């Protein structure tokens, strides 16, 4: 019930390509879905987040697509750059749950020049 499943575990994309990372959740009470980006030697940092009242949110080259009926959400990175090479985590949370988030397993993205 509390799991968030993330795929793929690793991803290699050419510069300029589109990177797509998928997440699926089970608990329909989740109402907050953030993505975090982590560079080597650093802690994760919030990249972009969505709530289920919208199906898509875009910030620059990063877009979250949300499918409530399928209980899935995904991160799309357009025009991927070598500087996007990092580990990405999806997460899910509930408004009534004291700020607790359930994180996915992580995806290591490598963007080749």
């Amino acid at each position, binding site marked *: 019930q*509390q799991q968030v499943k*993330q795929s793929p*575990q690793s991803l290699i994309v050419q510069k300029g390509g589109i990177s797509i990372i998928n997440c699926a959740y089970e608990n329909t009470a989740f*109402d*907050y879905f*953030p993505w*975090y980006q982590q560079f080597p*030697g*650093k*802690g*994760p*940092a*919030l990249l972009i*987040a969505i709530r289920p009242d919208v199906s898509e949110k875009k910030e620059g080259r990063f877009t979250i697509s949300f499918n409530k009926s399928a209980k899935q959400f995904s991160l799309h990175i357009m025009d991927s750059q070598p500087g996007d090479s990092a580990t990405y*985590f999806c997460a899910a*949370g*509930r*408004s*009534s*749950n*004291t*700020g*607790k*988030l*359930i*994180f*996915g*397993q*992580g995806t290591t993205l490598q963007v080749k020049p």
Partner: protein
Amino acid sequence: DVKVTQSSRYLVKRTGEKVFLECVQDMDHENMFWYRQDPGLGLRLIYFSYDVKMKEKGDIPEGYSVSREKKERFSLILESASTNQTSMYLCASSENRGPDTQYFGPGTRLTVL
């Protein structure tokens, strides 16, 4: 800028030792969290605290305890370190009671020999 600091970047301890990991945040945040990060397993919540002296177990609390005597400081304690507690430990804080941006420290890489 929110700053979350962790007492050590790298720590090497022996089996059976008592280990203290310290975390300090400078933004008067209500919530603080301790995670461990392992390849392929993502971020797993150990304990969190939503107020001074308040704590709740996360998903993997066994072998750990926590202390929050002051709002800005959250300590993770390994009463008797074991080799399976070798991991990256991440501290985070967030402002509100509901799901909100979590700000992470740089992590402590703990090795238990």
